């Protein structure tokens, strides 16, 4: 796509970045856009910590013997990889960065409904994060990110309580973000921005927020119970005191399965926006895509025990949860079909965000379809707790969510920073990530079906698994390069990038009708929406050079 469709704005225009300077103007800001950037910096920090752990894990598995680190160290590495990546990167990633930045812009609001609570949520995240870093520096935790009892409550002698408190606090950050979004989307839409005109990104974030609000408190309760059990031996999970360790799994997965949708729904929202823009089309089946997000959020709460088919629950419970797991697969399938159909008779451009969206489609499809294997009771028994599961959820949570996150970062980077990133490098990075990802995780499906259990430090009893592990480790290094590249060129573009126009993609959506970067209050005047979402036909109409009806002064 031809990049600038209008002249770049002259430098020096006041925007949210240059309005105030100094540390305190950032640390005390209530501007959702600045808070989004605070989140961006903090989650990037945790992403690279988690990625570093992943690299060490892969290096250890290069050879069957345990020779790089000690067994205890390895166990801490995969535990902290999981805790950091899930609670400190994936859960906040798209909502707290892109959602924070875009939700008010997309609905035509000045800010989120509760700007101070928004800042508080970042501080909670930072306090939780600092505690987690302290925990990691002073010994770490070795329970896996799943904190299974009674190992976590009675046996592990690592810093379980501290890690639990860190996650507990970060959880409140997530709850507050969800609360803010729900209220904002309900109350602060611009005149004319009806529910059926909302971008699907907003629908996805609305669904996500519901899960954050309803699910995260259960995680908080569960972690509190673990801490209480460790300190006071209450006998909640300890069978010797009459407790039930399987109860822990029910509580834990009641949050942690829906949490997967906290990670993937926003990515689906991002991809929807990208596909519409780069196909120059309205999304096929708008209302089906919108309601499928809500369906996923609701059904997502009813499938948690599919993590427990071999845990010792009843066969009848397993039947119900298997059936419901197939039910939740349907709305995801609906989305994939609608995205694909949107391409039909489109006018497709291959800019970097679209390459990430294509990557998302491919990887999410594979991740989703391998979920059908795991939901099939007879097969789950064999492949659960093996590398098959590891591969499956990485396809969803890294292939899906991280691809969506990176695609979104590229798509909205001109809006966020006011600068263009180098397109050639970005396309190259998308390709490297895609290849590296598949090389890392596809072999793990095979490893899993062959029977390699997950969380194994040493596989010298089964050296036959080495070839596939070598492939996977090789892929991980490629993937690492793919992830470093965007960070480098985004930073580079902040100083050297070409200035971006207000709407470099000629995209639909209110966020593109204000300045790049936007001013502190987003719009000079409250916008009034008179058009449907994804009105690419109007944008691409041959002689549509009239100014868009943005910022039409209208009395409320």
């Amino acid at each position: 796509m031809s990049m600038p469709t209008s002249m770049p704005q002259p430098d020096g225009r006041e925007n949210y970045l240059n309005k105030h300077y100094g540390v305190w103007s950032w640390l005390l800001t209530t501007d959702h856009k600045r808070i989004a950037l605070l989140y961006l910096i903090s989650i990037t920090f945790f992403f690279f910590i988690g990625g570093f752990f992943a690299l060490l894990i892969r290096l250890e598995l290069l050879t069957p013997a345990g020779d790089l680190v000690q067994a205890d160290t390895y166990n801490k590495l995969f535990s902290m990889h999981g805790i950091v990546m899930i609670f400190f990167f994936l859960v906040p990633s798209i909502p707290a960065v892109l959602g924070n930045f875009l939700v008010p812009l997309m609905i035509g609001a000045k800010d989120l409904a509760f700007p101070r609570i928004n800042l508080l949520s970042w501080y909670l995240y930072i306090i939780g994060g600092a505690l987690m870093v302290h925990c990691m520096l002073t010994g770490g935790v070795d329970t896996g990110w799943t904190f299974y009892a009674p190992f976590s409550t009675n046996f592990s002698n690592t810093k379980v309580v501290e890690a639990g408190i860190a996650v507990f606090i970060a959880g409140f950050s997530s709850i507050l973000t969800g609360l803010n979004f729900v209220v904002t989307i309900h109350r602060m839409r611009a005149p004319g921005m009806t529910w059926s005109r909302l971008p699907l990104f907003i629908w996805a974030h609305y669904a996500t927020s519901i899960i954050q609000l309803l699910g995260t408190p259960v995680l908080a309760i569960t972690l509190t119970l673990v801490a209480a059990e460790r300190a006071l031996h209450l006998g909640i999970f300890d069978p010797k005191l009459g407790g039930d360790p399987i109860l822990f799994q029910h509580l834990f997965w009641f949050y942690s399965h829906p949490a997967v949708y906290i990670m993937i729904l926003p990515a689906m929202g991002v991809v929807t926006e990208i596909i519409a823009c780069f196909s120059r089309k309205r999304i096929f089946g708008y209302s089906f895509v919108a309601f499928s997000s809500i369906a996923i959020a609701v059904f997502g709460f009813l499938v948690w025990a599919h993590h427990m088919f071999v845990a010792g629950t009843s066969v009848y419970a397993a039947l119900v949860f298997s059936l419901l797991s197939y039910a939740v697969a349907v709305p995801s399938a609906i989305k994939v079909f609608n995205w694909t159909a949107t391409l039909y008779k489109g006018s497709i451009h291959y800019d970097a965000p679209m390459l990430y969206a294509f990557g998302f489609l491919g990887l999410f499809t594979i991740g989703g379809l391998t979920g059908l294997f795991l939901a099939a009771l007879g097969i789950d028994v064999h492949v659960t707790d093996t590398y098959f599961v590891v591969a499956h959820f990485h396809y969803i949570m890294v292939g899906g969510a991280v691809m969506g996150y990176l695609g979104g970062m590229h798509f909205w980077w001109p809006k966020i920073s006011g600068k263009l990133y180098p397109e050639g490098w970005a396309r190259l990075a998308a390709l490297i990530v895609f290849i590296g990802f598949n090389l890392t995780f596809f072999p793990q499906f095979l490893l899993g079906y062959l029977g390699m259990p997950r969380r194994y430090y040493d596989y010298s009893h089964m050296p036959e698994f080495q070839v596939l592990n070598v492939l996977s480790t090789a892929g991980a290094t490629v993937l690492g390069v793919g992830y470093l590249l965007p960070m480098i060129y985004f930073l580079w573009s902040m100083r050297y990038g070409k200035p971006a126009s207000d709407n470099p993609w000629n995209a639909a959506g209110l966020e593109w009708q204000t300045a790049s970067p936007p001013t502190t209050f987003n719009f000079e005047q409250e916008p009034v929406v008179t058009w449907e979402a994804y009105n690419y036909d109007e944008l691409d109409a041959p002689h549509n050079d009239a100014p868009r009806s943005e910022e039409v002064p209208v009395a409320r």
Partner: protein
Amino acid sequence: MASRVDALYIFLLIVTGMMTLLIFVCLVYFAARFRYRPGIPAEQIEGSTALEITWSTIPFLIFMVIFAWGAVVYFKERTPPADSTEVYVVAKQWMWKLEHAEGQREMNELHVPVGRDVKMIMTSQDVIHSFFVPAFRIKQDVVPGRYTVAWFRATKPGVYHLFCAEYCGTQHSGMVGSIVVQEPAQYEAWMNGGSTGPLSATGEKVFSELGCATCHRNDAQGRGPSLQGVFGKPVQLDDGRTVTADENYLRECILDPGAKRVKGFQPIMPTFQGLVSEEQVNALVAYIKSISAAKPGEAGKASASTAAPKAEQNGSKVQ
């Protein structure tokens, strides 16, 4: 079992492979065919309810086939045949202790004959473990405080991996062993070397050492219920419920006697939690099962059919 799981797996590979192919072919074809060309605008299409219903219903129906098939395989996996050979498994950080009902004890190694159904009655001394034999496609978590059950029938002699599949601490990856599948003759020879007598005999000894018999008398005059013939039969509880006296129930009665008290008896039995090892609990359960099978005439049919053949085997093996 492996072939049943593999058949479903291959079916799923074909179905999901076709779905993947369909989506990828559409993606690639659309992406190439409808790439941007100057002057040719995109054609706006609103959507189609008919299409939406089609591509929701057809996958859902396919999913239901997979679901039903998966459920059938799972039910077979979770239902041990009635006349299985029994092995009691105690998992602990980080080893497997296995005790055949016939009396052989093993560490991290389980000898079984080819072609016989083997049922494992498993518990853990500490954290949750998981009994995983990839070659047999079976996996079952081993949970402290209760029994879980898994079974398999090996069809080919050989040595197969046994893994712990639930993360259990430092040496989780060292908690591996093997299943040694032997021809019946070989297996008999192995079984006869160094057996300590049947597990039920050990249980009988524990039973009398702990003084259980003072209350649990056979003449129904004791302060506790008679255990003769109780296994596998429904038991009326004091609170009005009825439960089946399976392995988990017997285990719970030993460790937490107040929880499910038999109707008509006082809550006077002390707990044996902490006084008996997991192995001793297993032996006691095996013993109670054996005396349930001893009098096939009056004992319930269910218990008789499960335990009787074994008791005879045991009997012939004691000396």
